C-alpha cells in the first residue's frame, strides 16, 4: 500500500503545479472546483482488482508509469493535412482538435456552425455561454467518489464546451478530436461538457487517435445533459495507439422527453476502460447505447455501462458487440436499473461476443435490477465462435475459408456499424475494423 501511495504522490501530482501556473487566470468557481476535486483525489485510492467494479481490469501498470503532463500547447507544427486521416469530410469546419490534452487552435475550425451555437475550448467560452458552463460543468460526473474523475477534475484546465441553445437544430455534425502525438509518456485529461438545450438537435463525434507509437495515458471525462425534448447522437471512436492507456467516463443526464443515442466504438489502446452511465431523469426519455469493441494482440478493453430508469414511460436499448482475436481480453458489465415507480419501462440489453482465437477471453455480466411492476425488460449475453455451418454455407457458394471468415466477422461488426448514419464515419470504421483484423474484403 505504501508503494501505491508513493506512486500516486509521485506520478499524479501535476495538478499542484498546474494550480500554480494558472494562478490568477481562472474564475474563482473553477479554481474552487479544482481544489475540491484535488482534495477528493488525495483522499481516494486507485482501484485494485479487489474492487468489484475493477475485478477484471488491472490498472497497476498505468499507475507505475511516470507520465509527463503538458500545461501549454507546445505542438504547433501539426497541419490540418497531417491529421486528415482522423478527421471527417462532414466536419472539417465544425471541429475542435486537442493535442496531448490541450486545445490546438490552428487545427480547429468551427466556421460552419450556426450563430448561437457554442463549440469552444473552455478558456475561450464566449460571455453569453459562460453562465451555462458555470451552471453545468462538473455537475454530472462524480469527482467525489471516482478517483479518475477526481483526477481529471483536479486538472481541469482545457476542454471542450458544446452548447446547443434551446430549439436549435444543428445539421452539421460536430467533431471533437483528441490526438496524442507525444514521443515521451504523456498524461492528458480530456474533458467535454455537452449541453443540449430544450428541443435542440445535435450530432457529436468524440474521437481519440494517435500519431506515433509511444505510451500515453488519456484520462477522459465527458458530461452530457440533454434538456427536455433534446435529441443528441453521440459517436465515440476510441482508437488510441497500441501502447496507450485509456480510462474514460461518459456521464449522461436526460431530461423529460429527450433522446440520446450513443455509438461507442473501441478499437485502440493497450488498456481501455469506458464507463458510460446514463440517468433517465424524467418521463418519456429514450436511450439507445450501442457499442462495438475489437481487441487483438494483448489488448484489454473494459466497458462498464449503467442505465438508470427512475421514471415511468421510458425506453432504453443497448447492444454491445465484441470481436476478440489473439490474446485479446474484454470485459462487459452492463447494469440496468428499473427503480420503484418506473412503470411501463421498456429496457433491452444484449452483449454478444465473437471469439476468433482460443487465447482470447471475455468476461461478460449483464445485470438487470427491477424494482417496478408492469415493465418490459430483457437482457442477455452470448459468446461464440464462427460456426462451422456458417463457414460451410459460404464455402458452398465458392467463397474460400479465409474470405468466408473475413466476411462473417465483418458482418458481425457491421450489425452495429451499419446503424451509423454519417457515411464517412461508417466507411472509416469499416476500413479500420477490417484493417485491424488483417482482413481484406471489398464491400460497398
Amino acid at each position, binding site marked *: 500500500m505504501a508503494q501505491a501511495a508513493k506512486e500516486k504522490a509521485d506520478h499524479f501530482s501535476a495538478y499542484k503545479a498546474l494550480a500554480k501556473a494558472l494562478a490568477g487566470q481562472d474564475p474563482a468557481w473553477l479554481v474552487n472546483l479544482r481544489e475540491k476535486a484535488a482534495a477528493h483525489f488525495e483522499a481516494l485510492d486507485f482501484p485494485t482488482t479487489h474492487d468489484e467494479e475493477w475485478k477484471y481490469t488491472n490498472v497497476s501498470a498505468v499507475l507505475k508509469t511516470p507520465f509527463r503532463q503538458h500545461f501549454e500547447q507546445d505542438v504547433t507544427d501539426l497541419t490540418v493535412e497531417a491529421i486528415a486521416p482522423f478527421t471527417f469530410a462532414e466536419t472539417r469546419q465544425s471541429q475542435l482538435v486537442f493535442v496531448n490534452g490541450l486545445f490546438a487552435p490552428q487545427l480547429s475550425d468551427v466556421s460552419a456552425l450556426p450563430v448561437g451555437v457554442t463549440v469552444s475550448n473552455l478558456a475561450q467560452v464566449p460571455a453569453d455561454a459562460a453562465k451555462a458552463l458555470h451552471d453545468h460543468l462538473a455537475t454530472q460526473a462524480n469527482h467525489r467518489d471516482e478517483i479518475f474523475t477526481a483526477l481529471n477534475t483536479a486538472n481541469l484546465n482545457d476542454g471542450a464546451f458544446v452548447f446547443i441553445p434551446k430549439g436549435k437544430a444543428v445539421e452539421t455534425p460536430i467533431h471533437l478530436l483528441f490526438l496524442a502525438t507525444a514521443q515521451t509518456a504523456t498524461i492528458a485529461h480530456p474533458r467535454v461538457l455537452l449541453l443540449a438545450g430544450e428541443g435542440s438537435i445535435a450530432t457529436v463525434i468524440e474521437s481519440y487517435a494517435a500519431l506515433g507509437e509511444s505510451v500515453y495515458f488519456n484520462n477522459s471525462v465527458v458530461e452530457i445533459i440533454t434538456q427536455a425534448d433534446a435529441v443528441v447522437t453521440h459517436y465515440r471512436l476510441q482508437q488510441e495507439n497500441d501502447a496507450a492507456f485509456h480510462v474514460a467516463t461518459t456521464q449522461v443526464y436526460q431530461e423529460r422527453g429527450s433522446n440520446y443515442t450513443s455509438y461507442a466504438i473501441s478499437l485502440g489502446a493497450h488498456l481501455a476502460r469506458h464507463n458510460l452511465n446514463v440517468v433517465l431523469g424524467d418521463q418519456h426519455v429514450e436511450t439507445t447505447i450501442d457499442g462495438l469493441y475489437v481487441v487483438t494482440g494483448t489488448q484489454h478493453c473494459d466497458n462498464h455501462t449503467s442505465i438508470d430508469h427512475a421514471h415511468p414511460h421510458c425506453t432504453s436499448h443497448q447492444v454491445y458487440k465484441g470481436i476478440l482475436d489473439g490474446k485479446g481480453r474484454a470485459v462487459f458489465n452492463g447494469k440496468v436499473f428499473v427503480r420503484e415507480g418506473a412503470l411501463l419501462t421498456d429496457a433491452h440489453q444484449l452483449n454478444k461476443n465473437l471469439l476468433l482465437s482460443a487465447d482470447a477471453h471475455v468476461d461478460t455480466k449483464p445485470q438487470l435490477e427491477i424494482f417496478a411492476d408492469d415493465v418490459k425488460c430483457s437482457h442477455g449475453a452470448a459468446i461464440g465462435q464462427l460456426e462451422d455451418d456458417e463457414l*460451410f*454455407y*459460404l*464455402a*458452398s*457458394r465458392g*467463397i*474460400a475459408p479465409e474470405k468466408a471468415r473475413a*466476411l462473417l466477422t465483418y458482418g458481425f461488426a457491421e450489425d452495429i456499424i451499419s446503424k451509423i448514419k454519417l457515411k464517412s464515419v461508417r466507411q472509416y470504421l469499416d476500413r479500420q475494423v477490417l484493417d485491424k483484423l488483417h482482413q481484406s474484403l471489398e464491400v*460497398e
Partner: protein
Amino acid sequence: MLEIRNLHATIDGKEILRGLTLTVNAGEIHAIMGPNGSGKSTLAKILAGHPAYEVTGGEVLFEGKNLFELEADERARAGVFLAFQYPIEIPGVSNANFLRMAYNEKAKHDGKDELDPLEFDDLIQEKLKIVEMDKSFLNRSVNEGFSGGEKKRNEILQMAVLEPKLAVLDETDSGLDIDALRIVAGGVNKLANKDNAIILVTHYQRLLDYIEPHFVHVLYKGQIVKSGGKDLALELEKKGYDWIKGASAAA
C-alpha cells in the same frame, strides 16, 4: 456428369450411407425420395463437401474427376451447388454483397471478368425475375429475418446467379406454402437445361407435381433400393414408405 459408386459415409462414427450408387447425366433431373433418416440430406451435404461427414468407402466422380479431392469452396467454383434445407443467416452482410462476392469468386475461377456493383446490378435484376423477388431483398442481410419461403427463394436466386452444372436441392419444398412452392419450382424449371443436371432431394411427391423428374430413386437405409420414372413417386405417395420398408425387409 456425376457418378456415385458404392458410397459409404459416416457422421460421428454412425454409418449413414451404405453403398450408394447413382449416375446423373447432363440434362437430367433426378428425384431422390425416402423416409426420414434414410440418408437423403447426408448425400446432399457430402456432395457439397460438408466437413462433418466422413466418406469411408466408394467414390464420386464429377465430370470424370474425383470430387473428394476438392474442398467445399472448390467444388462450388467447379460447378456444384447445394440449395440448403435450412439456409444460414448472415447478419450484417447484404444479400447484394454476398451474391456479388460469390459470383466474382466463380467468375475468377472461370476466367471471366469480375463485376463491379453497377454491372452486377444489371445481372441481378434479370435473376430476381426468375424467383419473383423484389429488389429490396438485395439490401437486406443474407437470410436474416427472411420467412421460410423467402429463404428458399433466395437459395434459388443464388443458383440462378452461379449457374451451376450440378444443383442439389435439399428439401427445397419443405415449409413452403403453395405460392412459394410454385415460385420456387418455376425458378428451378427456368434454370434447368440440357447442359446442367439437378438432383431433387425430397420427402414428398408434391414438389414433383411442379418439377418433373426424369428419374426417381428411393433411398432407404443408405442405399438406393428402387429406381424408376416419375410414376414411382406417385406409387410411393399412394403406398407410403412402409411399402419400401416392407420390400426391403423381405429382400
